[in-house]
């Protein structure tokens, strides 16, 4: 039986648990705490109890023997019109690290339409021990109605210990579909992945509670262990910055890479369900994800009209404009400018942040930035510590000065 367990011998009836609880899930009566219908097992009372009288009991885990049957790390390699997305190579880099610690193999799983180029698969093969490749018209468009049961079936047959997915729009739809079919756990938007070399337990760390906390999550008794990671969080393997092309490679190398590929089939009963009628690219302006320079505006810029300064600065630096979430919520900028965990992960060479506090959800999106210059009135703002250069100043005045100087230097 699992649930909140209170040790009556230890409980002193101090009511700290009652105060810590946000859901009226624990009350103290007659100097003894007990859980109510409101308890959601969040653990706040466990932390608040000064005498260690409260703990959360979990049911027993699955037998160990079963877990040992699962081995190897899989990376789901997402493609768009036959091109493997960069996040797949970022995940492969991390998978290699984990696999080295654990002493296991790395497999990339790729689905694509019939007769497409194999260049993407070859590039994956250069980064993995094995590529599971299915070429099937039903995989040409990314539809979780086909992909999720396909991957779930593969995983059931081949039993990987871990599967990693890019937290792209499609990855975030696919991974839960696989998780629920395999009845296993899934951790979204991990920023740190570590492995216990002995047990293979994956420690998945992600921002939690509005970003003020990091939580490390494990999936002890179910396999595969699954996690999604936002694009840009991990660095891609160096040799895969560009996709290899079969025609440029010595035939022997191609043969070697082809030998790492294993063909997979898709259940004939599966049919695509979601039909894309029209694709619309976001208009005007390049994507901030690939911008070499970003000027990011936060609430500290004070008013919407100061965005003109932000734009001018971005223009002078040959970059794009990014922003924090509150600015999107106020309607100052479109969502596609939002940098962070629920926005875009960026990786510019230079990032100038104007009036950005540096909440963890925001920081989660700028891990790939090479040089961060933070401008903030408050020297203790988290971003001022995380940046390479901290400028304690009024960001609007600073932006004006910097623009003036850059304009002067540009002649």
């Amino acid at each position: 039986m699992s649930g909140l367990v209170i040790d009556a011998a230890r409980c002193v009836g101090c009511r700290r648990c009652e105060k810590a609880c946000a859901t009226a899930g624990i009350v103290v009566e007659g100097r003894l705490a007990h859980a109510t219908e409101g308890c959601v097992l969040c653990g706040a009372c466990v932390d608040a109890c000064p005498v260690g009288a409260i703990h959360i009991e979990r049911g027993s885990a699955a037998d160990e023997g079963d877990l040992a049957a699962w081995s190897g790390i899989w990376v789901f390699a997402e493609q768009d019109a036959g091109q493997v997305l960069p996040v797949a190579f970022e995940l492969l880099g991390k998978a290699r690290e984990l696999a080295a610690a654990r002493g296991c193999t790395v497999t990339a799983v790729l689905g694509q339409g019939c007769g497409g180029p194999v260049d993407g698969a070859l590039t994956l093969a250069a980064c993995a021990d094995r590529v599971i490749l299915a070429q099937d018209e039903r995989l040409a468009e990314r539809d979780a109605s086909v992909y999720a049961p396909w991957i779930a079936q593969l995983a059931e047959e081949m039993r990987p210990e871990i599967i990693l997915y890019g937290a792209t729009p499609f990855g975030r739809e696919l991974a839960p579909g696989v998780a629920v079919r395999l009845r296993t756990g899934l951790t979204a938007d991990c920023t740190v992945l570590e492995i216990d070399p002995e047990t293979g337990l994956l420690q998945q760390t992600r921002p939690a509670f509005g970003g003020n906390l990091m939580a490390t999550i494990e999936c002890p008794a179910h396999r595969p262990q699954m996690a999604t990671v936002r694009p840009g969080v991990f660095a891609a393997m160096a040799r895969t910055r560009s996709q290899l092309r079969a025609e440029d490679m010595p035939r022997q190398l191609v043969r070697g890479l082809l030998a790492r590929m294993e063909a997979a089939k898709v259940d004939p009963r599966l049919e695509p369900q979601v039909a894309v009628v029209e694709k619309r690219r976001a208009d005007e302006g390049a994507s901030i994800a690939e911008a070499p320079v970003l000027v990011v505006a936060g609430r500290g810029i004070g008013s919407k009209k100061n965005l003109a300064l932000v734009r001018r600065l971005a223009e002078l630096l040959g970059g794009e404009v990014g922003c924090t979430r509150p600015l999107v919520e106020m309607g100052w900028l479109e969502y596609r400018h939002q940098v962070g965990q629920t926005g875009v992960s960026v990786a510019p060479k230079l990032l100038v942040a104007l009036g950005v506090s540096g909440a963890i959800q925001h920081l989660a999106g700028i891990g790939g930035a090479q040089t961060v210059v933070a401008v903030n009135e408050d020297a203790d703002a988290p971003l001022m510590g995380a940046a390479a250069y901290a400028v304690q100043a009024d960001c609007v005045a600073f932006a004006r000065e910097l623009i003036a100087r850059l304009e002067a230097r540009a002649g």
Partner: protein
Amino acid sequence: MHIVVCAKAVPSTTEVRMDPVTHTIVRDGRQAVINPFDTAALELALQVKDGVFEADGRCARGVAGGADAACGGLRPSSDEAACADATADTAPADRPAAPVTVSVLSMGIPATEALLRDAISRGADEGVLLSDRAFAGADTLATTYALTCGLAHMPTADLILCGKMAVDGDTAQIGPEIAGALGVPCVTDVRELVAVGARRVRAVRGADNGTEVVDVPLPAVLTVAKEAADLRMPSIAGVRRGACARVRVLGAEDVGADPARAGLAGSPTQVVRSFVPQRADEAVRVEGTVSEQAAQVADLIEGMAL
């Protein structure tokens, strides 16, 4: 047509204060509200009920990404074609089967009942609350399990709408997991509903770099972005209706939930550690007057040879 909106009670603010000494979260005094993404889902459901999306040749909303009238000839021809398509494909033969009813389903503590009443006062027909200590401590898989148990005890849903994510959990997994559990298709991050028929739905969803207009057959699960709709205010009559409405409160046994698959016991994932991130403060402080600071940064940028 029966639409089920899955809604979650979340703290009214996500700006959690940390106790600087104990590094634990201070949660006092936070009122629960319906997750803002779920309110957008509810509003879309109510709009379907109002007949806003009946594909009857009016192209009620068009396929426009923006607010402009898609059928007014203001858009490039590809949009018009898609718009004409929307009506040709789904209407007039295919309208949502009347009447459209909207149920709101939530898993939560008993106090969540008040939020379901609020949903009814805004136009929902029914509220179902899954509340049981056996559901407590659920991760996304166990939550999905409880919700699908609840769905099995409601009239068959033709369309299930979820918020794109919850502001407190932020996993965006429940919608796609429900779809997977039911074996029905899922469309995530729906920015706009275009047409709703008895057999399928056309919607605009967020994609890698822009948006996509997609068609999906029913039954299906859609997860809704906040920008898709703003929840209406309740009417006076609605408030009265909400006040006297009966919210069905179901426990684990009522919905035949296997205790081993619900709540903490049914959750494969567990939080083993939470911590306040420590940042190594290695920042170089740029000192001086604003003008001097700007000069230093200008030098720095020049030195980077971008």
